[in-house]
């Protein structure tokens, strides 16, 4: 085993190595070809889990299993979290998949993959966007910031700190997207940008202080199935206003506001 698969040795337990060797010898196939077919093979859970981990990490190797015609391959150079990156991808590959599968940045989450949930939110040239509806090919020359890039070394971004303080999550799956979106929201408010619930479109201001109603409207593209919304609003309000927020106050405020849904 160790001669044939030297790179695997230190990652397998003895049981796993034995099981893998057994499976491969039964199939009479090379490991490389085997990985390509692993989705259809019925195997023990341990081996499948192991292979998934190997495949995800081995971005370069994966490319060999995606035969690309010249027309279909796209080479893209862009910046990700302030580092220059160059990837060669299938033209169909989304930014979300490139981040996760090619660049091993798995902080950005795939929720719905159809632009409905906001879990994949990243910043592109400083604006919040959905990485699931962005082709990697469209990122040439752009600068992308993911959740991995918002902290400064070991110092968390204030929005990260506020989410922790206010318990702005339960399962945490939507959190990277929520935080990237909230950071984007802060930039937009500082630029004096509007939302549908803004009272007067014609009134311009250099910067806007957001009500909770405004925060909720502006965060409506980020869904949270655990329902941590009041805590998320509290966290954002605290960073946005610079004043400590009482989460209970947010909950009570919510019952006061109506909407056009009651026409």
């Amino acid at each position, binding site marked *: 085993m160790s001669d044939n698969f030297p790179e695997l040795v230190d990652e397998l337990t003895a049981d796993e190595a034995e099981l893998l060797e057994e499976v491969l010898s039964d199939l009479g196939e090379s490991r490389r070809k085997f990985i390509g077919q692993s989705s259809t093979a019925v195997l023990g859970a341990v081996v499948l889990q192991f292979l998934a981990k190997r495949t995800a990490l081995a971005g370069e190797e994966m490319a060999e299993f995606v035969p690309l015609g010249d027309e*279909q391959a796209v080479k893209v150079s862009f910046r990700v979290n302030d580092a220059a990156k160059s990837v060669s991808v299938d033209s169909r590959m989304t930014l979300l998949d490139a981040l996760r599968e090619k660049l091993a940045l798995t902080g950005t989450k795939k929720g719905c993959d*159809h632009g409905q949930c906001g879990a994949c939110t990243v910043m592109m040239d400083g*604006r919040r966007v959905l990485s699931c509806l962005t082709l990697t090919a469209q990122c040439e020359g752009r600068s992308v910031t993911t959740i991995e890039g918002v902290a400064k070394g070991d110092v968390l971004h204030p929005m990260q700190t506020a989410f922790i303080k206010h318990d702005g999550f339960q399962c945490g799956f939507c959190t990277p997207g929520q935080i990237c979106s909230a950071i984007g929201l802060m930039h937009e408010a500082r630029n004096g940008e509007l939302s549908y619930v*803004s009272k007067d*479109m014609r009134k*311009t201001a250099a910067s806007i202080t957001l009500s909770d109603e405004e925060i909720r409207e*502006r965060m*409506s593209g980020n869904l949270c199935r655990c329902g941590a919304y009041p805590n998320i609003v509290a966290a954002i309000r605290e960073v946005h206003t610079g004043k400590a927020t009482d989460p209970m106050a947010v909950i009570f405020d919510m019952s006061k506001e109506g909407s*056009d849904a009651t*026409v």
Partner: protein
Amino acid sequence: MRPFKYTRATDVAAAAKTVSTNREAAFLAGGTNLLDLMKEGVAKPSELVDISGLAFSKIRSSGNVISIGSTAKNSDTANHALIRRNFPMLSQAILAGASAQIRNMATNGGNLMQRTRCTYFYDVNMPCNKREPGSGCGAMEGINKGHAIFGWSDKCIATNPSDMSVALMALDAVVKVSGADKKQRSIAFADFHRLPGDTPEKDNTLEPGEMITSIDIPMSSAGMAANSYYLKVRDRASYAFALVSVAAAFEIKGGSVAKARVALGSVSHKPWRCDQAEKLLTGKSLKDLNDASLRAAVDAELMDAKPLEHNGYKVELARRAMVLAFKRALKSEVVA
């Protein structure tokens, strides 16, 4: 997803030529709708021509129009000082659509080109004359709660999902397009989107390869800025397509309505201009505008509505939403 060739356009004529020559090619700008349709297998282009780098991203005043570049982002357009000052209803309408992230990606041309969100169009296992001409209409015999009450045909009952387009319809916008042979033409907004008739696969009147370069709004529509409102009614408070939406704009001169512009969204295959209501409101003295007279204008418009099995509620919803939008647009001008 079907494999496709991706190219970045550097020249409008060449891009238009590619798309007019290869009937399976498509323009790509923001991609927020097209990429989703490709993932669903509804759109299957063999080639994408990325036009986002072309020089159509400016919003500027040009003579007697404000010209909105087709590749300008929805968010930049809604927040632009020229739009906010002159056409605040357009800002409202754009901001009523989608989410902040999507508005940061989506372009103005793409907003006009977005396709219906009819669930039967989206589901490739269902018949749909728009997606697959001749296959039938799944919605007609299915659940048609969100569908049209005006202008539908026995081939298609889908609605246009754009909020932005409803405001542009009421603002008398003009769509500027450029074709393969560099031929430019202007399309009145009312003629841009079309009714389904026997060819619901065609959403608009663009020729193959024609690209939207700008959307021009006459400054004469800015006279309605102070008395305009875009009201969107939906199943939840935000981030949902409209059940009914209303763009209402009035120019008030000497205590009466000099000009009235009204359009409805999500009730037809195209933004629905309300000529009847406009006619009844134009010339009215503000003194005579009250619940009864506003209601009369609305009823005249909705008389011709033809609801389907599950969307009769849209007639009453449109009735109430129109009156409310009129009042918000007229603000303190109306006492009642």
